[in-house]
């Protein structure tokens, strides 16, 4: 009996913990099962870093090359439609074409300082999980640096690494690994 009571107490504690996970969190990428999350999904809101004003009220009011931001971001022809960037194994180097696309993102962000972006770094499953967590961060930081150099304010960028914990491809082969070594640019509010 004692054991059962203790178990119930812990279950109650676990429930509280679960509520803590969901209660009041701005982040909602979590509401979609992780496996099925589409790459670079629109509208993935992310909890802002402490002290960062994300300016939700202004969402949609900015422009990029004279067009409303929400329109440009949803235009598959726009250079800004590339919001996932891929890497070689154990590498955080960006290709020249990726750098060009990132320059467009840098221009968008520097022209609209009220906007913010989350750079979500990921790794493939090979090797150790903790090293891969650091590797995901290194990849996201490579993009952060590039954006900073092109005039994007530090407060506009949040870097988060998930390491190998959130694969988009669930296989265990080169093709899956290639898709999983990535950084996703997530614009909150769009």
């Amino acid at each position, binding site marked *: 009996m004692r054991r059962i009571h203790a*178990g119930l107490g*812990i*279950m109650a504690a*676990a429930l509280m913990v*679960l509520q803590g996970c969901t209660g009041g969190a701005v982040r909602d990428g979590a509401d979609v099962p992780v496996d099925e999350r589409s790459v670079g999904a629109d509208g993935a809101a992310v909890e802002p870093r402490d002290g960062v004003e994300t300016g939700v009220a202004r969402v949609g009011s900015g422009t990029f090359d004279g067009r409303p931001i929400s329109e440009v971001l949803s235009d598959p022809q726009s250079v800004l439609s590339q919001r996932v960037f891929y890497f070689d194994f154990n590498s955080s180097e960006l290709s020249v074409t990726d750098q060009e696309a990132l320059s467009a993102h840098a221009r968008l962000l520097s022209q609209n300082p009220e906007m913010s972006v989350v750079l979500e770094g990921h790794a493939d499953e090979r*090797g*150790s999980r903790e*090293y891969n967590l650091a590797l995901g961060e*290194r990849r996201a930081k490579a993009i952060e640096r590039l954006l900073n150099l092109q005039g994007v304010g530090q407060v506009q960028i949040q870097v988060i690494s998930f390491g190998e914990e959130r694969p988009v491809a*669930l296989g265990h082969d080169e093709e899956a690994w290639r898709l999983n070594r990535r950084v996703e640019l997530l614009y909150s509010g769009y």
Partner: protein
Amino acid sequence: MKKIANILFIPLLLLAAVAEARLTIEITGGREGAMPIAVVPFADEGLSEDRVGQIVSADLARSGHFAPMATQEMPAQPHEGRAIDFDTWRRAGIEHLVVGKVAARGEALQVQFQLFDVVRGEQVAGYSIPTTAQRLRRVAHQISDIVYEKITGQRGAFNTHVAYITVGQHEGQLSHRLAVADADGFNEQIILSSRQPLMSPAWAPDGNRLAYVSFEGGRSELYVQDVSSGKREKLASFNGLNSAPSWSPDGRRLAMTLSRDGNPEIYLLDVASRALSRLTFSRSIDTEPAWAPDGRSLVFTSDRGGRPQIYRLKLAGDRPDGRPQRLTFEGDYNARASFSPDGSRLVMVNGNNNRFRIAVQEMESGNVRILTDNRLDESPSFAPNGSMIIYATERNNRGILEAVSVDGRAQQRLGTRAGNVREPAWSPFN
């Protein structure tokens, strides 16, 4: 007798919700030279669903040191010393024999067992242990520990736990769970569930607290949870990574990886005072710290040389003592090292030609042995007696756990019925 009584008074771990699933264990690789032993089914085992003889037999088989005789091959089924005809067992090639019985004592149970050296016809150990039906599995593991230690001279690790992470669909949603089970896979208890990733469970030396990484706040943060009460506390949530916890042998400090200063570095956190001291200073990734058992040095993974390799950093109190020394030179990738309990060897993930396998390196000689033959091994963890290593791997598109003896000869596979299992952490003795 006195020794046993003491063991029994150690409180049971009171864990969360009752198991839905359990790890099943399949022995996949035998061991040449395993000792022939017979564990006769105990008398009146029907008093509980847990069959003591069966549990002891399975424990001993899993260790790789023993080859228990199948029940149907036994020439007799005695339950006490007086009933043993040693000649029949000698003829059957048996060297050691375990017999015993379970008896009701009011609400409680009494387990009696004897271990015999068949060759000499002598009793090696014999105990009578008071218990309850609920604790019978634990008593069986304690009997396994006694048999193992009497015969091999090494302390048994059967009465220990394994923590691990499972990931799978639960009520239509992806669920990450932190679980604790007995070392034989039974009594799985979920101590935390989250829709966000959980990582890096690490046992405190007291065997009752687990440090781990949770993404429930949208990024990596470090928690410590009391396993028996479920109470937990956020210990590190600095900007950037909060990851790779490792308890100091005295349980007062945690080594961890933080990128609060812009780059992943190893830090020490004093658990009581929350004082933080930084141990590494390089522009590369430094992560996965693990303490030497004497608490005077740490090993960690760094790619300061271009690729991930293992380095050792000596400590003077909370400060680094000299520069980190590289320890690994075999293979193009070495990561997630940890010390054997006696400090004489390291286990790690060794990557070579796109294969990631478990390797053991002797500290003194630097000799490296690859223990596994898989493709995607990770997260190795020593048993507290140093005899086995549990690790995670991938098979048929599922994450599973496997264990291998430190000499690489005995292997077993542990799996749940569904979902993925990963990041096993073997508990200390408790």
